[in-house]
């Protein structure tokens, strides 16, 4: 319909003239080509986020606008980035991948268990097209970021496909570094993790900028699929430059019968981030846990929207988001618990806690609940407060100077959600990263 398209062209500021595909040489299957084209159309026809949209309430919309975006160019000094990634590599990981501006520049998959498939996205589409197709970007619902998701769909060929067949278990995490650099450049990491029945897998994505002070953008989409009895953990650590970097990440989690998922967003850097997380408990016994630890300072804005949806009886979920805010930082948390008709005997919890370290910091919280079933245990709540004088006094009374006491308490506050994850080294690693940012705050 030409008129419709014409109207869309007029009302939507074109962020870019064509799909930001960086690599046309791969031998892509038809379904995927088609998916890209449709995604591009959807991107073009979807309006920018509006103030009147409940999904963008409290957001500073200027930050979600883009006048020009370029597909990320190949990085010059790849060796330096590989070196850098080694310095923040877990000693005990099953596999390690490094992407720089969408391109895989290093990998080591020696610790993977037998049967597990772990491939960069482009290769996975060629070699395991059917598997990818079955699970890739299947979520129709959106928490507001559909325009970003559409752009991602039109371009993504970066990131990792992780497939654990039935019963394949690995406690060690798979670690993935994503680097982005160059002004107006955008990367599209996609992480697709499928854990078949009774499989166990853990993945950590790390997002960093190559340089400071560049206007970079990450638009990532993560699909997590835990089949019956599977155990799936996913962590996103975002530690990009505070100046200029923007970051969008849209997670979708599906949990089958007796499946357990844990997913976490750890945000330390970037000037603006938008996290969305849809968690669906599809069959009895499914359990989704969602965590976040965010340390925001300066003028950083962290905008997070979540959905926990119970679609079967006897499902459980728990969400714990923690924000420590300093200076003029802003956070937005909007979380909805939905208990679908007939999803009796569900337990669903949601907590967002904000620790305000400055009078000018602003924490917004919008918890929500929709229950359409019986025998349901649900609670949601959010709190905002400052560190109590009594807590500081207690630490100080043991000889710890007041400023350090403050820092320890804030760190402990954030660590409470990190500590709910699995894997000792991983938790310690995340904790150290948060600690490092705190050290730079002072």
């Amino acid at each position, binding site marked *: 319909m030409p008129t419709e398209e014409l109207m869309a062209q007029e009302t939507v500021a074109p962020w870019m003239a064509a799909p930001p595909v960086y690599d046309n040489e791969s031998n892509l299957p038809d379904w995927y080509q088609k998916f890209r084209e449709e995604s591009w159309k959807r991107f073009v026809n979807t309006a920018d986020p509006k103030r009147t949209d409940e999904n963008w309430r409290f957001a500073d919309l200027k930050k979600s606008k883009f006048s020009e975006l370029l597909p990320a160019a190949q990085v010059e000094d790849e060796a330096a980035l590989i070196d850098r990634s080694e310095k923040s590599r877990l000693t005990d990981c099953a596999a390690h991948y490094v992407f720089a501006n969408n391109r895989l520049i290093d990998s080591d998959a020696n610790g993977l268990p037998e049967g597990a498939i772990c491939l960069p996205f482009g290769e996975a589409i060629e070699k395991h097209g059917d598997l990818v197709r079955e699970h890739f970007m299947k979520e129709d619902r959106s928490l507001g970021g559909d325009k970003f998701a559409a752009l991602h769909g039109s371009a993504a060929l970066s990131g990792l496909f992780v497939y654990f067949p039935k019963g394949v278990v690995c406690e060690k995490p798979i670690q993935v570094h994503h680097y982005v650099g160059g002004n107006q450049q955008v990367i599209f990491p996609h992480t697709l993790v499928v854990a078949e029945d009774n499989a166990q897998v853990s993945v950590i994505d790390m997002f960093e900028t190559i340089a400071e002070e560049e206007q970079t953008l990450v638009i990532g989409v993560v699909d997590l699929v835990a089949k019956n009895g599977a155990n799936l953990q996913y962590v996103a650590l975002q530690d990009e430059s505070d100046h200029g970097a923007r970051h969008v990440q849209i997670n979708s989690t599906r949990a089958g019968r007796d499946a357990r998922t844990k997913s976490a967003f750890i945000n330390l850097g970037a000037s603006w981030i938008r996290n969305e997380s849809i968690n669906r408990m599809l069959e009895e016994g499914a359990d989704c846990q969602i965590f976040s630890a965010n340390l925001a300072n300066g003028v950083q804005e962290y905008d997070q929207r979540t959905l926990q949806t119970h679609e079967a009886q006897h499902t459980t979920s728990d969400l714990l988001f923690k924000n420590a805010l300093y200076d003029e930082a802003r956070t937005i948390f909007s979380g909805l618990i939905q208990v679908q008709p007939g999803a009796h005997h569900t337990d669903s919890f949601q907590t967002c806690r904000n620790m305000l370290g400055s009078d000018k910091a602003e924490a917004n919280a919008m918890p929500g609940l929709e229950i359409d079933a019986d025998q349901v245990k649900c609670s949601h709540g959010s709190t905002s407060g400052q560190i109590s004088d009594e807590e500081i*006094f207690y630490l100080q*009374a*043991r*000889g*710890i100077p*007041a400023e350090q006491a403050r820092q*320890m*308490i804030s760190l*402990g*506050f954030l660590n409470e959600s990190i500590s709910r994850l699995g894997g000792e080294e991983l938790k310690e690693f995340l904790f150290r990263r948060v600690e490092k940012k705190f050290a730079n705050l002072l």
Partner: protein
Amino acid sequence: MSDSLKIENLHASVEGNEILKGLTLEIPKGEVHAIMGPNGSGKSTLSKVLAGNEEYDVSEGTVKMDGVDLLDLEVDERSREGFFLAFQYPHEIPGVSNANFLRAALQARLPKGEEIDAVAFYKTMYEKMDALQMDRKFTGRSVNDGFSGGEKKRNEILQMMMLEPKYAVLDETDSGLDIDALKIVAEGVNRMRGPERGFLVITHYQRLLDYIVPDVVHVMVDGQIVKSGGKELAHELEEKGYDWVTEELAVA
């Protein structure tokens, strides 16, 4: 200058109400003194004023610790100078592990640039925990978070054992402890008794003083020390009750 914790004519108030009304007390190094007194007489207030809690206004009086003016120091400075308070109600610090907390407290006592020896630290901590019959899982747990009353009190004593203060005030450390735990804690305190340390044991009940036998017992009523004596005074108080002291005062 004699080595002691010397409190003279201490007046302190909170929200305009005077709680300590000219309290005078000296604990020579090497001695264990006990303060007994009815609820609300100001015992915890005294302990918190000594530790430097800013909720309380000190309007008059001095506190000298081995000649150092304690009231001039910040809370953390007092601790590093060798003052310790085992709190009646220890605070919970979610997300900060006991081990990290203790380590930070010890680290704060080292000169700049010097790092704590982690191996030695854990070894010492485990020894002290064994002595207090504390499970080692407490090292990884958040400070006092979800601890029972008794566990919190043991944790206070563990901190005291690790920090080795010159003067320690124990505020109702016996409350919340069953008799076995009380013996363990008392044993820990007794092992720290010696010529280089002074103790002030605050308690409501005489029971604790059967296990930590004091050199001197003071009775505190309405923000003042009204009577002092030997350890037998504790028994007398237990038998006759606090009214006996107040009545005796009224007569005198």
